[in-house]
């Protein structure tokens, strides 16, 4: 029992530590005030619409930046409260969607890229967005590329029961990772950013459905 508690504790420390690995730097440009930075930013970014500037000025990230990802208890409460309130669920309350659609949302990289007028690599808002989840996670073992900045999610549903609580936990994590871990490295994907509630439900199914390739052996496994 003692060993397993230590293991759990160690795992937690490692998981939390990963988010703070960058703290070797002496400061994050702390001599420059937020006000001075935002003034420089106003001059330095071309804006198609004034609201694009809001992407530089987020209240939860402001705390993470000011504390180097180590908010105090009151700040943790503030962030978790704000981010939990921001989670929106699908209209039919179905948090478990279609894994085949989820497979596509996870792979797609399209969404939210802002361009100068006439710049063709900017994202078309009429096109459904994707999460580009493979940038940071290994997921479907058949997918050829993966990043390792987030934990591997291969076999995610194999070792987790498909309970209502697990479905909600997974939904909330994908929709807004900062609702459970205030300065998580993981982006907040839910509206108004990249993914709709229905898309997030599809990704939940992709991760948890036993039929999803995430929870199946790789198709071309070496014999």
């Amino acid at each position, binding site marked *: 029992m003692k060993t397993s508690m230590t293991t759990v504790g160690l795992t937690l420390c490692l998981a939390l530590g990963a988010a703070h*690995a*960058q703290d*070797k*730097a002496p*400061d*994050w*440009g*702390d*001599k*420059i005030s937020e006000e*001075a*930075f935002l003034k*420089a*930013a106003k*001059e*330095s*970014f*071309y*804006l*198609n619409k004034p609201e*694009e*500037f809001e*992407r*530089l000025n*987020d209240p939860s*990230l402001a705390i*993470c*930046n000011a504390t180097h990802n180590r908010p105090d208890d009151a700040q943790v409460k503030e962030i978790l409260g704000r981010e939990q309130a921001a989670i929106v669920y699908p209209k039919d309350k179905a948090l478990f969607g279609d894994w085949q659609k989820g497979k596509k949302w996870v792979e797609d990289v399209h969404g*939210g*890229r*802002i*361009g*100068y007028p*006439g*710049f*063709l*690599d*900017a994202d078309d808002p009429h096109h459904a967005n994707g999460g*580009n989840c*493979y*940038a*940071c996670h290994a997921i479907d073992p058949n997918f*050829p*590329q*993966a*990043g*390792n*900045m987030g934990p591997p999610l291969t076999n995610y549903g194999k070792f987790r029961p498909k309970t209502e609580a697990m479905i909600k936990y997974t939904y909330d994590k994908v929709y807004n990772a*900062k609702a459970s871990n205030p300065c*998580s*490295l*993981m*982006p*907040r994907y839910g509206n108004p*950013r*990249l993914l709709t509630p229905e898309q997030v439900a599809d990704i939940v199914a992709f991760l948890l459905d036993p039929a999803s390739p995430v929870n199946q052996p790789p198709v071309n496994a070496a014999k």
Partner: protein
Amino acid sequence: MKTIKRLALSLGLGLGVPAALMIGTTGALANSDEDKFAAYRDALGDENPGEFFIDDGKKFFHEKRGPKNENLEKCDFGLGPGVLKGAYAQLPRYFADTGKVETLEGRILGCMVKLQGFKEEDVLKMHYQNAGEEDSRPSELAAITSYIAAQSNGLKFDVKLEHAAEKNAYEMGKKMFWRRQGWMDLSCADCHANTQGKLLRGVELPDMTAPKTAGKVMTAFPAYVLKDANVRTQWWRNERCVLAMRLPWLKTGSELDAALTLYMSIFASQSDEKIQVPGIKPRA
């Protein structure tokens, strides 16, 4: 120019073949992306398509052009009007005439406006539209930047923090680098500091706060990017990350572009890497 572009394109498309060839020449799979690509770069030898863009830049720099029918030979890049040798190695720096810390690109842009009478928005429009992978176009500003940067080939970066404005820009650049922002909630540092072993969608990430890797990256820009069949500048490199962070569009030569470039140049200046442009890069 049309022929040049076609030639450059055909060379760019040849990338797939040497990938297989490299395994043969080294006898085993090279151990990193950088090693693998270095073998291809060696195989290219003097056949760097980026050289064509430098030739264009030389022409654009010395020919009388623009509404004022002037060339750029009176432009001062920090070592005196028209002195190009070694100028890029000391940029960004503070310029008293503008009262700003400027990058090479920002400085050229200013001279094109002041000396030649070009409209800033016209120069930038092509430079910005040029930045796309799918519709890569030639940019005069990128060509001139490549030409001038190449006059520092063989030199190490030697960017200094002397003027108060340079010291302030360094701090501003540090904040730009470490501050989490944009719809991805990421800082530059999340991917480009303490990166040992980190992969982003299968791609290795250079640590821009470590002198050696910062030096390697920065001495290669402006670089010929094979995927785009075009030369790409340091501003472009900054903007491609800004784009992926889902931030608004970073203006070439703006205060934050200059500050970020200066911040990383200080690390590059601590390395032994020598400027060798145009570098060759596989992709964005």
